[in-house]
């Protein structure tokens, strides 16, 4: 009986995989990909798998494995998933190939802004953008007669009112987890203030008025955040929202769909997506993209097959089926309410994340060094000076600053 069931299931699976081939062709070349593992990647790689002979590794630790895997000859993966930051090590090591000829052959449906160009050569194909932007509880703010906050000053005022009215103890949520998340918060604020991270010769330049302003805003927000903010990552903030514990947060656009997920969320339809709050110069956020690269160390036939498969993975059909999963870069994408926040931030002039080798080190130094300011162990200037010192030590070791 049991054996029979298993056999039946097996037969069904084979039949299903034969029937579901929504792919327009049959892929003959064995291909593998390594990328991050969030929902949009799952949608893209699932669509690619429909063509057969393809296996995807969706791995949250992909950025530690990718440089080594692509440096192997032949490369361990033909297709790689990157964002603006994780493109840098591959680009530096020269392990990804220019895609211009392939774009000409298969890329008729690509939008011009999907082509990531470095020195005139297309090195990656972006298929989605992501940004942190303001999400707020429209019911809570409307009850108290608060307008949509446009700046961090207004957010803090709104938080004060919500707390005073006794609606919530901690109205603001934030991805302030020490390390990458906290570093990213500073990057957002600092760019919003119009700051620049580096001077000549990769020397750090964050210990200035804009840096202090960014820090002070971060600290002012923590007064209205759960005291355990230094361990709170995107998933935690998303859950706080879903459980109705917070009213406002600057959260990733890729998390927007979760607010209306009836299985998890108690606040369906009550969260409005708005532009990231304005800093002194531009919205305090950074625009990221996610896209696909192809390894240098493989045959041209493989590259041809891989690119064709990628085009199938990010085609209109996939975007149509997963419209709300991400802010897709595609002609087939209809921006809904969930994408409004990211779109408004970009229209307001939000900058792309300034990814580079030195920026990687700076982000780490910021992520490790900011907690001392927020916990009160250091004042703003000391914290920034110490972060700069830490950056210089690491950058010298990496060879980015000459001794």
């Amino acid at each position, binding site marked *: 009986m049991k054996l029979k069931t298993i056999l039946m299931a097996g037969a069904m699976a084979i039949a299903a995989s034969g029937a579901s081939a929504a792919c327009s062709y049959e892929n003959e070349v064995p291909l593998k990909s390594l990328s991050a593992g969030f929902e949009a990647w799952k949608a893209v790689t699932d669509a690619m798998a429909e063509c057969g002979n393809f296996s995807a590794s969706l791995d949250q630790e992909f950025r530690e494995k990718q440089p080594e895997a692509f440096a192997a000859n032949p490369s361990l993966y033909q297709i790689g998933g990157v964002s603006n930051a994780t493109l840098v090590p591959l680009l530096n090591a020269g*392990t990804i190939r220019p895609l211009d000829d392939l774009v000409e052959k298969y890329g008729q449906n690509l939008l011009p802004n999907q082509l990531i160009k470095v020195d005139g050569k297309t090195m990656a194909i972006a298929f989605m953008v992501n940004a942190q932007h303001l999400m707020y509880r429209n019911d809570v703010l409307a009850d108290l007669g608060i307008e949509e906050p446009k700046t961090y000053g207004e957010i803090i005022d709104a938080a004060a009112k919500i707390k005073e009215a006794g609606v919530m103890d901690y109205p603001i949520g934030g991805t302030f987890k020490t390390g990458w998340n906290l570093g990213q918060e500073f990057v957002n604020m600092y760019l919003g203030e119009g700051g620049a991270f580096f001077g000549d010769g990769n020397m750090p330049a964050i210990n200035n008025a804009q840096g202090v302003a960014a820090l002070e805003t971060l600290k002012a927000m923590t007064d209205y955040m*759960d005291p355990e903010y230094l361990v709170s990552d995107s998933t935690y903030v998303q859950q706080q929202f879903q459980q109705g514990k917070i009213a406002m947060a600057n959260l990733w656009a890729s998390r927007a769909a979760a607010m209306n997920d009836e299985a998890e969320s108690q606040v369906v339809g009550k969260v409005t997506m708005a532009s990231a709050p304005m800093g002194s110069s531009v919205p305090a956020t950074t625009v990221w993209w996610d896209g696909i690269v192809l390894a240098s160390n493989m045959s041209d036939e493989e590259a041809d097959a891989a690119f064709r498969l990628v085009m199938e993975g990010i085609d209109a059909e996939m975007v149509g089926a997963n419209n709300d999963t991400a802010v897709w870069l595609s002609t087939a994408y209809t921006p809904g309410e969930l994408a409004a926040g990211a779109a408004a931030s*970009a229209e307001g002039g939000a900058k792309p994340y300034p990814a580079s080798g030195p920026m990687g080190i700076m982000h780490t130094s910021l992520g490790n060094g900011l907690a001392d300011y927020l916990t009160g162990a250091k004042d703003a200037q000391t914290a920034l000076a110490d972060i700069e010192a830490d950056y210089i030590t690491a950058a010298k070791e*990496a060879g980015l600053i000459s001794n």
Partner: protein
Amino acid sequence: MNFRTFAAFVGPSVFMMLLFIAFPLVSVFKQSFYITQPVYETVEVETCTPGFLTQTCVTELKSQPKLDEHGEVITRTEYVGLQSYRNVLEPERAWRAITEGNWSVLSTINFWKALRFTLTFTLITLPLVIGFGLGIAVLINNAAGSIRGPVIFISLLPFIITPVIGALSINWLFRGDGILTALLEWWLNRDIALFAQAWTIEILMMFYRVWHVAPFAAVVFYAGLQTVNQDSLESAVIDGATRWQRMKYIVIPHLMPLIIFVSMIHLMDAYRVFEEIVGFSSQAYVISLQWLTFDFLVPDQAGNRSISRASASAMLTMIGIVLLLILPLRRTWRDHKGGH
């Protein structure tokens, strides 16, 4: 046993130890004195990234590693002496803080912050592990034969759990409005945030470590308890010794070699405290020496990692363990010599 047989038995083990312990150690030692870095050139690059409708293109000066004719990154390796150790220890800043008597500044320098916690953690958990281990062992020993099996099984459970999983469970039980925090809040009728300051996290970490390691100590001591001379115990009872006196004058001296053995194992393990930091994601407040090494070694998103500082930090951790072990080792050495 003749030498050939001895060598045949020991050989494979010595070979493995050389291959997997000694050689890596020598390599780490060497790397801590060298820095290997790519050769960078500054080039003007135009980069285009997607906006919503159009592309954003910027032209800027960028540092790019030079590639050789095979497409490999050109690197150069340079002897830097103790520079990496200086970078880890930051002696000037530390010394300034010490001379000014400013402990709060000293405790913001990563290495010293980590050393402070690592030592506190090691030295506080040591007596607790020994104490609880002994307690559990005596408890098992005195339990009736019929329930002894289940008691041993239950007391061993914490030791079986994978350390990271155990730390994560404690984290989830207490984080935010975790079950146990909610219970405490209900009981004390006040808002509690256990992950919002260093000392509560440290207490949770020590609690977790003692909970996790005490069963190991207990099993070792329980084995030792089986070999206590029953005649001496009986004569002590006849002489009117209390339970405590029997423990103090007969059982503990008998178990002393085992206590030292457990202490040494625990010192070595606790000084390398790492799972707790990751499991409790406590980097903002509390870091350990082992975590510091790990942090140097993890590449950032642009692929940079600080191998030289990681090597230096690993060597310093090893030196620390050796220093800690000198005391118990000297005692065993003396006992050993006295025994002959």
